[in-house]
């Protein structure tokens, strides 16, 4: 699908109530991602301020061919999540698209303390001055959420 057809398809989805794009990562760079995000950000809210973006942002390679290991590639590693979060912050997507909210879903929360520490260190050293810890905190608190999932045996009734 080329970008013109992609935009048409997204326009169709947008016109019929879609609020986000579920996008699987590929090795190829997604040059059109800003266009896609812009399209979403211009959407009039349907029922809430909820915005959803896939955790599979560009630059997050899928190392395991899911076709051969049907449940493996998506379920077993949280490293793509860390990479996705880095990508969102380092490209300042929350600044460019302040109405867009980012959900890191089905990936637990255990990586959050690590990434907070690691991003703080990284951004304090950033030569371009793009980040300080307070800026990172503002990004995180205003634009993102991580959804934790209890282990199935901890659910009521299990």
């Amino acid at each position: 699908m080329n970008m013109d057809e992609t935009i048409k398809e997204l326009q169709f989805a947008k016109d019929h109530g879609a609020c986000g794009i579920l996008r699987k990562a590929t090795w190829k760079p997604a040059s059109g991602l800003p266009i896609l995000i812009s399209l979403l950000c211009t959407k009039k809210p349907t029922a809430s301020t909820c915005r959803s973006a896939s955790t599979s942002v560009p630059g997050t390679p899928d190392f395991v061919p899911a076709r051969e290991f049907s449940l493996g590639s998506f379920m077993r590693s949280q490293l793509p999540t860390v990479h996705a979060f880095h990508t969102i912050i380092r490209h300042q997507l929350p600044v460019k698209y302040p109405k867009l909210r980012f959900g890191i879903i089905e990936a637990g929360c255990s990586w959050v303390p690590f990434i907070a520490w690691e991003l703080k260190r990284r951004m304090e050293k950033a030569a371009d001055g793009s980040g300080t810890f307070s800026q990172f905190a503002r990004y995180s608190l205003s634009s993102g959420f991580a959804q934790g999932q209890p282990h199935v045996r901890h659910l009521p009734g299990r």
Partner: protein
Amino acid sequence: MPIIDADTHIDETEATWEYLREFEQEYKPITQYPSRVDPSKNPTRYWLVDGHRQMRFVRDDNNTRTTVETRELLDVQKRLRDMDAMGTEVQVLYPTLFLMEATERPEVSTALRRSYNRWLADRCAESTAAYVGSACRR
């Protein structure tokens, strides 16, 4: 305070692929079952997509507290009643099959996602307020 379920899924069904265009019919996924069934294990079935098997889950109604009518959007009003019972105002719907890459051929992937988007749009049209779909793009 309205509750938004930002991560809920549907299960694709045969109707999901009814929106394939004429020249895309050869890409239509079909359901297959294992040739040898082990009665000691849970039942299994597959989507055959582009010559490859992808899991088509057989879910337990009691365990999931859902029914095939609600999971596959065969009965949207019933799903809405379930949402009301849970106090959920909005659900953001995600697919199941497309969580795993079903094919490496772009033309197949594009056709299936296009059909999925239209199927979901039609199902969501039955409820003007409670559904927010999730468009698929390869």
